[in-house]
């Protein structure tokens, strides 16, 4: 590392002890949205998106991802000292998602529990905080989750992509890790590209303003600083995963940074499941961990509107092969698929006025 580094690095090395993904079963093809709102005319940002079942929300989805992560971690749940859930679709305005998740996995009562919010990077925010808690030896293990059931106004461009899914990670000491997190870097500015005001059902966004000054600026600055400061190059990484609001943005930024389609493709899930918001970059990471080999290096860069990016360098260890079989793969959730039409989607997402 170079001197005067702005990288965030814990004093004691940390890593991912267990990881788990979750994607609901239902899929809404983008053609269903365009059929209703544009007469089927125009390009589509994804093939289809995942839709939560009528009995699913960020609580239930986080519970399943956390159980998968714990099955891979194979640790005593009484040693977990934090359960943190990042999302922009917590079921309650006031009452933590995280206490329900912690109760369901048996992590109560000797634990921190809190909900995080930073648009689409709430999940990596929780991961970075968990790195600090574990890296300072305040705690042996912490669980960080990023999960969303994203909202899209009917007819809005976001309706094609606003999806459901995410991932959970058990963070712990590096010598027990299946992937060490070597360092992280956050790049944050006040950039109003996307927001949802209090009591509003759907978010607003700045259309083209969400591109250059928002997504591309923050992802690029975070990735560039990370590469320069860690004295690594694109070719040093086996895999790279970016926040993926659509199929185009992550591929464009990846190319600009010198990464090949081969490095990007494993973690690029948006065409098949849509934009899972707080879950988007990190569920891509779980798909990578499902196939990575010991020694592989991974670069992950999240993005959250408002705006900021967290970049992370991970190095896979030889404990990966033994752990990953202990929970369903991310691909097995993606292939568990039931297509629905727009009318069913409208009912499942509460878009029909009943009273």
């Amino acid at each position: 590392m170079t001197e005067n580094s702005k990288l965030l690095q814990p004093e004691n090395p940390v890593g991912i002890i267990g990881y788990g993904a979750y994607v609901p079963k239902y899929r809404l093809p983008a053609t269903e949205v365009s059929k209703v709102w544009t007469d089927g005319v125009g390009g589509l940002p994804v093939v289809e998106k995942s839709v939560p079942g009528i009995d699913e929300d960020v609580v239930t989805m986080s519970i399943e991802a956390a159980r998968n992560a714990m099955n891979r971690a194979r640790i005593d749940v009484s040693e977990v000292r934090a359960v943190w859930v990042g999302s922009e679709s917590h079921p309650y305005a006031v009452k933590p998602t995280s206490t329900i998740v912690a109760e369901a996995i048996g992590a109560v009562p000797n634990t921190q529990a809190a909900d995080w919010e930073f648009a689409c990077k709430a999940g990596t925010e929780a991961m970075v905080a968990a790195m600090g808690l574990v890296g300072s030896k305040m705690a042996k293990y912490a669980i960080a989750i990023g999960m969303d059931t994203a909202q899209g106004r009917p007819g809005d461009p976001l309706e094609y992509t606003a999806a459901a899914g995410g991932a959970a990670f058990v963070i712990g000491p590096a010598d027990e890790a299946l992937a060490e997190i070597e360092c992280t870097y956050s790049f944050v500015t006040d950039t109003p590209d996307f927001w949802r005001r209090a009591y509003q059902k759907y978010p607003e966004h700045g259309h083209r303003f969400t591109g250059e000054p928002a997504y591309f600026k923050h992802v690029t600055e975070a990735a560039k600083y990370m590469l320069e400061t860690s004295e690594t190059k694109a070719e040093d990484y086996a895999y790279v995963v970016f926040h993926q609001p659509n199929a185009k943005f992550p591929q464009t930024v990846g190319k600009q940074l010198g990464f090949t389609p081969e490095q990007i493709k494993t973690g690029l899930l948006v065409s098949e499941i849509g934009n899972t918001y707080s879950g988007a970059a990190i569920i891509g990471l779980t798909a990578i961990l499902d196939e990575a080999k010991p020694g592989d290096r991974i670069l992950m860069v999240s993005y959250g509107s408002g705006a900021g990016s967290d970049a992370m360098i991970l190095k896979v260890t030889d404990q990966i092969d033994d752990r990953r079989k202990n929970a369903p793969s991310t691909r097995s959730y993606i292939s568990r698929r039931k297509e629905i039409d727009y009318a069913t989607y409208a009912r499942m997402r509460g878009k029909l006025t009943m009273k």
Partner: protein
Amino acid sequence: MDIPRHWRLKKQRYALVGEVCDHCDSKVFPPRDICPDCGEEAKTLYSFSGKGEVYSYTKVFEAPAGFDENAPYTVAMVKLEEGPLVTAQLTDLDESNLEIGMPVEMVTRKLRSATDERGMLVYGYKFRPVMA
């Protein structure tokens, strides 16, 4: 006021936490502190695996109050691999595959809102077809 009841039942509802009889090793669900097999005290907590199979099922079209948003839905008696029979909704179902004996696994899902849209959310176990 339902809040204390929902709060008291949370462990069994969220994670199928029942009891095991220290005398005859029977697994007990829902927890009742007395073993239904040998009649002795059974207070040791036991987390069920969540695996089981459909023992019988029916489809509900006229749902009771609080569940109408989910109708129509399928309710099953599920024979847990540890022995007890539990009644629960099935979810994420492909109805063409539904049959007695179908292997299922427990998932924690939203059961209902305790009252209206202002009420607390009630979470609990349902069963889905076992993931391949």
